[in-house]
């Protein structure tokens, strides 16, 4: 990992958030590094990985992510996560304020693109969660259903029927 990082040029770590690397060129995207530890399962397990080159947060919920389709981005093969696990992560991670709202709207965008097999996988993962996590996830779906729109994000008003159908599918 350190070898790979040493080959990255044109980026410097943000002083406010050292796990975020900012580009010298505004046409490039920022890089947000996050850690994954296969031993973790939930938010309470998360920890800070202290490292002089790249300190980062290791999130327990990232273990729901499974490798999915690979896209080609300018010659770089980028593996995307499967939608079901990403949905679980987005709907259970407790972020605050605008970031939390945007996370829920990202979940809505994912739901809008999910096929039946993705939803079935999502339901299967949901049924394996502890009871309090299932309740938290349903609560966040309910909040998503009642949210006001944000600019440049999926419209929660348009997605209400879809969210209601997902809640009905998941509820006991």
């Amino acid at each position, binding site marked *: 990992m350190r070898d790979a990082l040493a080959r990255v040029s044109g980026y410097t770590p943000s002083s406010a958030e050292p796990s975020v690397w900012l580009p010298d060129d505004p046409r490039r995207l920022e890089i947000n590094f996050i850690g994954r530890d296969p031993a973790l399962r939930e938010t309470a397990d998360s920890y800070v990985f202290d490292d002089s080159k790249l300190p980062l947060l290791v999130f327990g919920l990232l273990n729901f992510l499974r490798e999915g389709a690979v896209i080609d981005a300018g010659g770089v093969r980028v593996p995307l996560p499967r939608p079901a696990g990403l949905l679980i992560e987005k709907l259970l991670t*407790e972020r605050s304020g605008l970031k939390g709202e945007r996370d829920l709207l990202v979940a809505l965008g994912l739901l809008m693109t999910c096929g039946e097999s993705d939803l079935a996988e999502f339901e299967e993962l949901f049924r394996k969660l502890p009871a*309090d996590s299932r309740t938290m996830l349903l609560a966040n*779906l309910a909040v998503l*259903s009642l949210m006001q729109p944000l600019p440049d994000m999926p419209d929660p008003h348009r997605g*209400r029927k879809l969210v*209601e159908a997902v809640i*009905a599918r998941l509820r006991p």
Partner: protein
Amino acid sequence: MSSLHERLREMKARAAIRKWEARQAELAGGVWLRLQLLLAQTRRALLITPEEANALRRAGFEPNPVGMQLEPAKSLFVIAEEIVPPEIVGSEIALREILRAPAAILIPFSAPA
């Protein structure tokens, strides 16, 4: 580095609170969750008068228990649009305004089971 530790501390605190809330789901403290879920399955809501609420009761409709668990209690009738009695007119009310309504009809996306 301290910003990461601070973020982690805040995230864990929020998660602990949400976990506590989740454990209240079936208890009095869970009424907000139950109300949110009820509203999530609601396509639109109609504000009705106390007289209209009484007329619905006489016609055999029962308010949803969630509304009765609030203080002050609210008569929230979940009724499919096609069976709302024609004499009940009501007026459209935004879901976010529902706590202002002493009585309302909640029209679900799909017919209640």
